[in-house]
């Protein structure tokens, strides 16, 4: 680990003022479950680390007429312990449950989960976010890409967004509140994530002097049925190979509005809009779920080793839809 300065903020303003104008200046430290390993591996080397654990107003889950607000510092465990989340937003609870390490659930925060860096092994081995060789060519297409993207992979990014919570939050129509020097701005969850075009860009719209403050799930999402299904090779301590979060609004057994968001298949959480339409007006059964799954992956373009992920993503969509329709927890 390179030497760094440790700063401890107690207010938002203080935290923001301690952040810098470039990513090398400073990094936000929440639970540290990702940041510390990135620093130990010299993948990121911020000059200063700004600990936000004690910043006021970033904690807790609060409901009001507008919706449910989740502070960026809420841990996975707190998310899972919350009755509202468990009973009203099963897709989010499923996703948090899927993070199958007690230590990470205890320390890892919702904000950290959304902002965590990709697990792409070229990135983690020091080849940069876009995994390039010394001539600037991406190592992924002809390399070991069994866990890489099958969608949104026209380059130059081939990694998958690692967040398990993001697809569920997007399906639930969440908005993210970002705190910066000029106060707060709000972006819809899908707009938060971007596909970087260069190694110096990030995977989201945060600027170096901003931080994620909270996440709001609108009240209108309270009546939705939802579920997340993740395909994992191991039963625990393993990343999903593919995942899908779905929400459906049912009237008289028929879907009036459905949303399907895929995880771990693209550099961003992937909204399968072409599949959403497939659901409208139908009641969900095996064949409707299967055709929605087909539609969701219709644009998939697997790399040399990851064709299997297309199938897995389809299964995830199908199983998530069937679970949501049944109201299974």
């Amino acid at each position, binding site marked *: 680990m390179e030497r760094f300065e440790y700063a401890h903020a107690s207010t938002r303003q203080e935290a923001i003022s301690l952040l810098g104008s470039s990513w090398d200046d400073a990094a936000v430290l929440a639970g540290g479950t990702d940041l510390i390993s990135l620093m130990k591996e010299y993948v990121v080397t911020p000059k200063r680390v700004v600990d936000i654990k004690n910043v006021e107003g970033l904690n807790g889950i609060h409901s009001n007429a507008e919706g449910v607000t989740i502070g960026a510092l809420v841990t996975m465990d707190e998310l899972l312990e919350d009755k509202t989340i468990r009973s009203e937003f099963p897709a989010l609870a499923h996703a948090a449950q899927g993070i199958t390490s007690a230590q990470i659930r205890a320390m890892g925060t919702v904000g950290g989960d959304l902002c965590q860096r990709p697990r792409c092994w070229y990135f983690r081995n020091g080849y940069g976010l876009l995994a390039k060789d010394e001539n600037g060519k991406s190592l992924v297409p002809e*390399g070991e890409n069994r866990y890489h993207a099958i969608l949104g992979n026209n380059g130059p990014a081939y990694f998958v967004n690692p967040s398990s919570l993001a697809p569920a939050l997007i399906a639930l129509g969440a908005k993210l509140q970002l705190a910066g020097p000029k106060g707060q701005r709000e972006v819809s969850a899908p707009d938060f994530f971007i596909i970087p075009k260069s190694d110096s860009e990030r995977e989201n719209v945060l600027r170096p002097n901003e931080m994620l403050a909270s996440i709001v799930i609108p009240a209108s999402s309270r009546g939705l049925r939802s579920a997340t299904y993740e*395909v994992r090779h*191991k039963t625990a301590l393993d990343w999903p190979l593919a995942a899908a979060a779905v929400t459906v609004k049912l009237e008289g057994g028929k879907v009036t509005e459905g949303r399907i968001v895929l995880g771990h298949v693209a550099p961003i959480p992937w909204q399968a809009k072409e599949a959403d339409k497939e659901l409208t007006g139908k009641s969900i059964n095996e064949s409707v779920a299967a055709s929605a799954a087909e539609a969701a992956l219709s644009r998939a373009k697997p790399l040399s080793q990851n064709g299997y992920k297309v199938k897995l993503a389809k299964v995830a969509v199908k199983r998530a839809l069937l679970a949501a329709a049944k109201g299974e927890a």
Partner: protein
Amino acid sequence: MADYHWPPTDKCSLIGRRISRLDGPWKSAGRIKYSYDVNRPNMLHGKMVFSPYAHAKVVSIDTSAAEKMPGVKAVEIMTEPGKEVFWVGHEVAAVAAETEEQARDAARRIQVRYEKLPHLVSDVAPSKAGEHTKQLAEQTDGNPDQALQQAEVISEGEYGASVITHCCLEAHGQVAEWDGDDLTLYASTQNVSGIPGEIAKANIVSSADKVRVLTPVMGGGFGSKFGADSWGLACARLAKKAGRPIKMMLERDQELMAAGERPSMYAKVKVGAKKDGTLVGWQSESWGTGGPDAQGGAPNLPYVVRIPDRRVKHTAVLTNIGPARAWRAPNHPQMCVITMSALDDLAAKLGMDPVDLLQKNIQMTGQLAKTYSAELEKASQLMDWKSKWHPRGDKTSGPIKKGLGVSMHTWGGAGHPSNCNCVIQPDGSVSVSLGSQDLGTGTRTVIGIITAETMGLPLEAVKVNIGDSKYPADGASGGSTTVGGVSSSTRRAATAALNQLLEKVAPSLDAKPDDLEAVDGEIRVKGNPSKAIFWKQACAKLGTTPITGTGQRQRGNDDLLSSGVGGAQMAEVSVDTETGIVHVDKLVAVQDCGLIIDLKTAESQVYGACIMGITYSLFEEKIMDEQTGRCLNADLEFYKLAGIGDFGDIVVHMMTGPGYDERGVIGLGEPPVISPGAAISNAVANAIGVRVPTLPLTPDKVFAALETKGAVA
């Protein structure tokens, strides 16, 4: 006099019972120190610099910047300029500093210039390996062409297993501490008695007796920790230069890159049989990679079932993936998955239950035929094979397909050279000392049990001294040779010591030493329990001089020991054909190993082996990137190991009683890890109706198999 032969098992009070390991409580309470835990006063920390290239020549090394870093006390070059490095992770230099962090930072400041050389790291067939191949063996027995021509059924297939690593819980490494010219090494090693000689050979000490190796416990080796290793030598040299103790343990990524791997093995197989299942001919062309120098050698195929007419050929592919090291039963798991998969496919073609096919040809297994046959029967019963088995392809509806698979394996397990001293003190205390080591297998406990049994004392009355090179020399713990070696030397030493005591005591009991026995904490006249003296009183007769008995494992045939075991395993799996994910629901392991000293630690070996077996069957793979020459999953995140939820039910049965016990002690560490790959692969084929050719059985391969062969569902 007491006889050194093993007592009949029904006369034993400790041998053959289920006894908890002696060091269990110390380990669980964290009271016993692994090498990793050793902290000496004033100790420094060492870190190494590794090659980032899979093949390169070191041009120059500049350590000046590193030497100026805070806390740095010594620097050591491990690969001199002009020499080559052969894998990413090959050690080049090392540095010692006050803290681990300082050492790590300083290591990054050592500037090494390399001249890159061409590499190959992909696990490819010889045809794609260019000049990186070496033919290791070609052999023909009988007339395989004719045999295969006359066969009524032929099955052909390609099978294999990937390169994996050892993943010892405790990393490689040691603490080195000098006292004048004397060196103490707290080393995580499988070879306590052998390391001093290696250090002397490297001219680090003037003679081997200047080195003391201490390994009271160690966190697993599996064949990867026989040597002092370059980092052991470097650590000793750094400690000398710095004049302070140094701890240098490998980090997890270095473990995976540079501390050894199990070679891969693949084969194209053609096997033929008569319609009744009698095997008639075998032909295989195999290959695999064991690093840059073809370590690992050629397999002896077919495995266990010795089909008389055969032609085999093996080619090694030379790659820059790291050094091959013995991995728990070297070559056997690979030979097993190749052979048992081929036989299973043949059984499917014959329309036969694979257990029947194995039983039909059981005579081809040679001397152990009866054992195998009994083990298959026992395993079938424990698996409920007859009622659960179905022909290839689970025809029930739904995506989850269930299946069963079987496999058999063998191993030698003859005891290695071993020496033991047993001391009886006048106060009645008993200790045994051997320069052996307990890798976590239960060696310490087994030694204690044998000593206590011999003396007629409770286990707690015996002190076991191992893990110190000052004790009588013992062999390296590899090849399942330890339990045999130490059992013989301990039994002989304890008997020799006891006999001296019996001689001392005999007059006071008015008996001849030959008429005495040591049981239940007493020395008594055989057949006349009332004529007895308590153990302590007996020892008091020694006056002030303790007794020492010595024992040595006999060269060649030792009548306390034997070798050659067989085992049978059966797996039951569920395959989700929509996700390609395999779950092992149940694994039955039936194993013989002669006379069992401690049933509990023996069973533990088998449980552990089954877990390791499930892990390499489903998950493990050292993933190499040809472009960068690197291992991309040098971590325990994407180098996947099974967790509790992945094991399913493991059922262990040890073959004991007449026919087994009287063979004497035979090693056990290796055999049970051999069959899981084949049994699980066969179960998957039985479930989904097609063969997934190679391990690990990952979802992508399951899908590929389902697609290319167009199977059920």
